């Protein structure tokens, strides 16, 4: 009876896995074929004459290498910045007492709820005043300085770290920054990994901000490169899907490498209620 249950469990897990993986399979399948395959009726589930032409085209003719590097640069800088500023702020909110603490933290939480469409126009004007249009800065600087989710995540984590860890250092007369840097940071590598993945993802897949801020093609991110294949006069779906594969592979690799820490990080922060 118990084995019977296990078999059903496996079947269910596998069916869900198929639903999850199929769109990716199809993405790869079409990316290996000419444009016609997209609209084949009935659909061709297995590429008859697979070719890497689409990939060659997007890298040579459409500059996808540059787009990938741009996305990498933006996402990496922003994510690293978040690790620093969010862990600093999270540490202060969890471990220190100061006037206005509750209010400021409340404001951070409240802004999590603000959809980007609400603030994008004034933000654009601000960026224009700063002379940052058509640079990476509008994508990097705000993310670098503040990750609302990040502060929340790190505060929750530090609240769960036993105080005893610090106490020895406090007795030795260590300053707060030393405690943060020498004791708190080392124990929070898992939650920092989780934060890194989350903030990397946000910028890697961002659409509206790059759409509005970047004009020169050399500065385009992968998402902008992708959407440019759906033009007014044509839709190059085969390139689009090859590009989509290119955009998924690096981030998926990062995830696979950091999967263990990521899961551990989410678990240890205690952000679950």
């Amino acid at each position, binding site marked *: 009876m118990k084995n019977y249950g296990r078999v059903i469990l496996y079947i269910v897990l596998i069916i869900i896995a198929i639903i999850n993986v199929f769109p990716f399979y199809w993405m790869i399948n079409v990316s290996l074929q000419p444009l016609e395959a997209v*609209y084949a009726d009935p659909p061709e589930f297995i590429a008859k004459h697979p070719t890497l032409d689409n990939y060659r085209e997007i890298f040579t003719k459409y500059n996808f290498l540059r787009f990938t590097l741009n996305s990498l640069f933006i996402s990496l800088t922003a994510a690293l910045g978040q690790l620093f500023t969010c862990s600093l702020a999270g540490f202060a909110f969890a471990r220190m007492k100061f006037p206005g603490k509750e209010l400021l933290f409340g404001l951070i939480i409240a802004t999590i709820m603000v959809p980007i469409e609400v603030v994008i126009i004034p933000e654009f004007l601000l960026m224009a005043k700063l002379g940052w249009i058509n640079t990476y800065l509008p994508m990097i600087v705000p993310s670098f300085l503040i990750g609302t989710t990040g502060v929340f995540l790190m505060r929750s984590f530090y609240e769960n770290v036993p105080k005893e860890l610090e106490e020895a250092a406090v007795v030795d007369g260590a300053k707060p920054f030393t405690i943060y840097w020498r004791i708190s940071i080392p124990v929070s590598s898992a939650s920092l990994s989780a934060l890194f993945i989350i903030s990397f993802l946000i910028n890697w897949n961002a659409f509206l901000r790059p759409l509005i801020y970047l004009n020169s093609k050399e500065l385009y991110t992968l998402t*902008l490169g992708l959407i440019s294949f759906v033009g007014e006069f044509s839709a190059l779906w085969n390139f689009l899907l090859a590009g989509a594969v290119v955009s998924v592979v690096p981030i998926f690799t990062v995830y696979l490498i950091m999967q263990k820490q990521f899961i551990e990080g989410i678990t240890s922060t205690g952000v679950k209620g």
Partner: protein
Amino acid sequence: MKKLLLLLILLIAAGMLFAAGGKEAEAPGADEPIVLEYWMWDPNFAEQEQAMIDRYEAEHPNVTINLTALDPKSYWTKLAAMAASKQMPDVFNMHPNSVEDFVDQTALLDLTEMIKKDFNKDEYFWSVMESSFSINDRYYAVPFAWVGSLIYYNKDMFDKYGVAYPTDGWGWDEFLEKAQALTKDLDGDGKTDQWGYGVFSRYAVYDGWILQNDGDYLNREKLTFEPDANAKQAIQFIFDLANKYMVSPHPKDYDLDKKKIKLMFQQENAAMISEGSWNIKFMRQDMQADFDWDVAIFPRGPNWKVDTMHAWADGIAIPASAKNPEAAWEFIKYILQRPAADYYPGKVPFYKAEAYSDEWDIYKSQGLPPEHKPIILSYGENASHFYTKYWKFWRGYASAEGSGLSEFIDASLNGDMTMDEFYAEADKEMNKMLDKAYR
């Protein structure tokens, strides 16, 4: 790198000497360096554009032109955003579907005097200029090219069923006869799988029918949605194509949008479609049709008076805030003289000498379909369209694709709405939006 720079400086210096030695006595200060930011909306043509700019810069050494080629999807978003931050480019592409919105914001330079001074009407397709960029008798942009809506037909399919090709001056009856002869149930399952004509709500597919019946669905005086009797006749005819004669599918069965309508034709699910002339490029290059095809003008309705083409311009404008409008204007005039080969295959140069050249007639010069592409030219003398303020919104375009009027047309073609409901809904919604636009 240093060598390259040195070479560049030498070249520029040489160019300056050459220019100074030229016979044109230039006004003092004309040699001061001028930088123009130029925005266009088609990255596919960025290379040709850059080549032209290089030629221009060689002839005008004191002018530097920075080209930014944006995707059509993000072009307007960015232009609006730049306008908000008061950093508009000095020269940029303009479309009649947006020109009134920009003029309304006093964002565009009035070009009327310059145009009157520098242009000879006979050398250009002036009706396109008038219909596209004249607002309250002032011109706010110059067309560099124009496009119109056409009927595309599959010659091989016509041959297969012994149907004669469309002729100039064909009428609705003739059209319907052909469409009926070409509508087939090929696999015998009782459902049509080859359609005589594919139609849906998009302006480029739909609006040409109304003009060829001497109709109008706008009251141009009051700027309201108010289809006249001729327009209603055309709307009824198209409705019947899908719901009475059954020669056109319900748009939703094929998810018809601007991409799928072309595919319907390319994959031989429809013997005829109507679309903008720019799709000649798509059929010939992007997804080559492996059958012989051609283009024809929209058939004439019972109340036809004169051939009217649903056509509009791709234009260039200068912002009201331009620091150097004269330099921008000189550059625009240069753009207009560009050779026909530089244009999108389905676009017609505004300058007639190029439009009537063999280079533009690709059938003549390269043997590529469509054979009758030049029919567009003569019809371009009588261009008309339905653009107003807020057009994108009420007609259903760009991020509002498929809403506004399009929503009701599609619903009626899908059989989800009767003609009476269509007029009631369209009247209510269209006029709400138009009222907001012109309040």
